[in-house]
């Protein structure tokens, strides 16, 4: 029996309660997996890996000069979320993205939230991704963030907390879809008794969002031309870009395929220039248009921003959304929810200290060996100090950086992330996990029932990023509640 020696230890385990009883919503999965022989499990695990390699379901590791393609390690035990739990998560995410969109509109127009002293002005105006150039620009349907990936974790009591919002070009949705397909091929019997929500609608919903957000001056009875803009095959997420474009049936374009004339965007086709109306861009603001942002970038399209300002093309996500995933601005999201919606946040933030607040800063500097310090605009597990596990030298290095530029740092108490049984090669052990659900904002707000569960494969590690040796799991949201 594969789970016989499994130890939840002193962590919140997704599958088992503290005294080792299987949680009700995991019962059918546990029963099916318990029948699998270790050898069989091993074979299935390597079959999945081979099929990912074969299908090119890979990401690119920049630092690695050897064979730059790697598969994102996949663990065959699904992460299961109970129906009533998901209901709360979904409500919380909808509430959050609604407030964030209102914030973005406000911050690029009247800035009432600053005038009403809810957020100190310097935090917004000094945010690295605040785009002054976009003040008072109207975006179609007032939607700034069309695609959002919000990272959630569960603490030692099983509470869902928001770790961060990814409002620029969140990635991973393709792995959510590929993981599901892989698990269906490998363990079809697991699905039978469980009643799992399908995630396969994601690309279709994404396309609908794009079509809904066609430029305001677009003729109502015409159909918009949608494209996905990628930096190209050398980008680490290229697999995902091509995957989503294929699933949506829209062209994937690079900057060099596009040209702007008379404030309109065109793509260069075998039949000449064809107008483009909506762009799902997977290029960050900085590289989008070298005539406005970084002139040294060859990835973007000169004139794109002019076309966007003129209202002739829509971008998903809009320009300037990065101001809201600055980790200092993150601190204020619960305030935004209260301010714009008059509600209490359904999903709380992780307790956070701002290094730029003198009182917090003193606390951070005095407790560097106990806190997790993050720089405001880094992602992928870079620019982080994990105090309790860091060396003296690393701690001192961060002390200097924080004193030099407090605006750029926040700190959080280390959270004991929940754990999940994960295959180690010959048995199951608990490994820390997080969850990135995907939220689409179009005519309605849709939270795809599932997401990407990332798992820290190294024993004891809390870092789940693929670039730091993390893996992933299929994520199940159950359709119906399961009796206790």
């Amino acid at each position, binding site marked *: 029996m594969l789970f016989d020696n499994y130890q939840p230890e002193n962590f919140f385990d997704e599958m088992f309660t503290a005294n080792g009883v299987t949680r009700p919503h995991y019962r059918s999965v546990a029963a099916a997996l318990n029948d699998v022989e270790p050898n069989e499990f091993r074979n299935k695990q390597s079959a999945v890996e081979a099929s990912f*390699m074969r299908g*090119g379901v890979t990401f690119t590791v920049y630092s690695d000069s050897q064979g730059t393609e790697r598969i994102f390690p996949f663990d065959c035990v699904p992460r299961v979320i109970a129906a009533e739990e998901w209901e709360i998560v979904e409500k919380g995410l909808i509430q959050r993205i609604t407030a964030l969109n209102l914030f973005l509109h406000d911050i690029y127009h009247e800035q009432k939230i600053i005038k009403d002293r809810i957020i100190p002005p310097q935090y917004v105006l000094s945010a690295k991704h605040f785009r002054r150039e976009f003040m008072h620009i109207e975006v179609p349907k007032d939607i700034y963030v069309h695609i959002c990936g919000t990272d959630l974790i569960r603490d030692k009591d099983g509470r869902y907390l928001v770790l961060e919002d990814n409002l620029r070009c969140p990635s991973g949705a393709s792995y959510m879809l590929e993981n599901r397909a892989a698990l269906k091929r490998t363990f079809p019997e697991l699905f039978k008794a469980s009643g799992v929500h399908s995630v396969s609608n994601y690309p279709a919903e994404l396309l609908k969002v794009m*079509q809904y957000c066609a430029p305001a001056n677009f003729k109502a009875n*015409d*159909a918009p031309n949608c494209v996905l803009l990628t930096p190209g095959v050398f980008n680490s997420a290229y697999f995902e870009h*091509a995957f989503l474009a294929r699933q949506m049936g829209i062209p994937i374009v690079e900057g060099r*395929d596009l*040209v702007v004339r008379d404030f309109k965007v065109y793509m260069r086709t075998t039949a000449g220039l064809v107008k483009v109306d909506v762009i799902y861009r997977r290029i960050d603001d900085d590289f989008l*248009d070298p*005539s406005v942002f970084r002139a040294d970038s060859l990835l973007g399209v000169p004139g794109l921003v002019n076309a966007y300002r003129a209202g002739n093309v829509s971008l998903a996500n809009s320009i300037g959304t990065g101001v809201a995933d600055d980790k200092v601005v993150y601190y204020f999201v619960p305030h935004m929810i209260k301010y714009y919606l008059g509600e209490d946040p359904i999903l709380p933030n992780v307790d956070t200290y701002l290094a730029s607040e003198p009182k917090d800063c003193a606390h951070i500097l005095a407790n560097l060996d106990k806190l997790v310090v993050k720089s405001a605009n880094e992602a992928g597990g870079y620019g982080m100090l994990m105090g309790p596990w860091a060396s003296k030298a690393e701690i001192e290095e961060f002390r200097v950086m924080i004193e030099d530029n407090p605006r750029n740092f926040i700190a959080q108490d280390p959270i004991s992330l929940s754990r999940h049984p994960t295959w180690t090669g010959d048995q199951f052990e608990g490994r820390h996990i997080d969850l990135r659900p995907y939220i689409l904002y179009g005519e309605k707000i849709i939270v795809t029932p599932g997401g990407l569960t990332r798992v820290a494969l190294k024993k004891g590690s809390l870092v789940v990023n693929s670039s730091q040796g993390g893996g992933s799991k299929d994520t199940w949201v159950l359709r119906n509640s399961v009796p206790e």
Partner: protein
Amino acid sequence: MPKSPPTQEEVARHKQANVMLSRVAGSLYWMSRYLERAENLARLVDVNLQIILDFGQVSDETMKEHWLPILRSTGDEDLFFQLYEVADSESVMEFVTFRQENPNSLLTCIGNARENARQVRDQISSEMWEVLNDAYHFIKNSDPENIWDGGASAFYDQIKYYSHLFQGITVSTFSRNEGFEFIQFGKYLERADKTTRLMDMKYHILLPKVTDVGGAVDAAQWQAVLRSASAVEPYRRFYVADILFAKVIEFLIFEDTFPRSLMFCLQQMDDFAHLIAGTPAGEYRSEGEHRFGKFLNNLNFTTTKDIIGRGLHEFLAEVQREIGALGEHLYTTFMYHPPVDMQAEIRFHQQQEQQQQ
């Protein structure tokens, strides 16, 4: 029943389906050409390895004579001798199969085919991509010693198999749209070119003595040429008799029912070029189309005897020129856009922005 007007979604689908980026057309074309090139290389090496077995004892010198034509047919003789001292089975096989420095090695060709496919993954079917990816990993995980010990034929057969599998999958999973036309055009262009080089190879192989023309060695060599085009059996069906030089070239040039003959490939190129350009069959409008039409027409009035009289080698060189010219014409017209002058574009849009304010 009257047809209801298309919904917005249907219009969008239709519009999207009919738009093809020039870059995508180029990638599909090169993907197809590189894979076809790899298949032909695999054929050449495999057949040559088998011929050598027929010869029993061979000296270093005759060994070299066996392999040089292959290197000459791809134009890589100089590069080869920069990397190796001796041209024997092992060195040539390694060079043609695995060397990254060789732009025409199997590894490079399949790598390039896959890289082009990766650029257009949203356009091709998953199955097409998986075959290319499989082929690439197969060759990347093989090494010369294993192949040498484990039977080279099985290895080269596997490469051919991947290529055939890819073509079969393409035919049964790829929509008959513009993209298909670029894939097919690229394939037949490459195949036509390689068929000429295959025949030309025989020109480079020296016979031991002039009097051997028409002898047993000559016949064995022509049979090898047929075999590398998978043409021995179809040839026998047409000409039950012996393998004769004039009959072999007639078959490989003019037999328009055989899918690797020159005529077959040229006609396919012509058909797909018309579809790509949107020119009705039989008409030749642009200068490039006109040139190819004239060439095809002349060829229709040429006989094997004419070709032999004029010199096979000279004839093949002309065919290669004409194939190249048509390829170049379609490439510059439909697949290539001159890269934008970034600095000029940036200045232009900055000025335009200022005028707006």
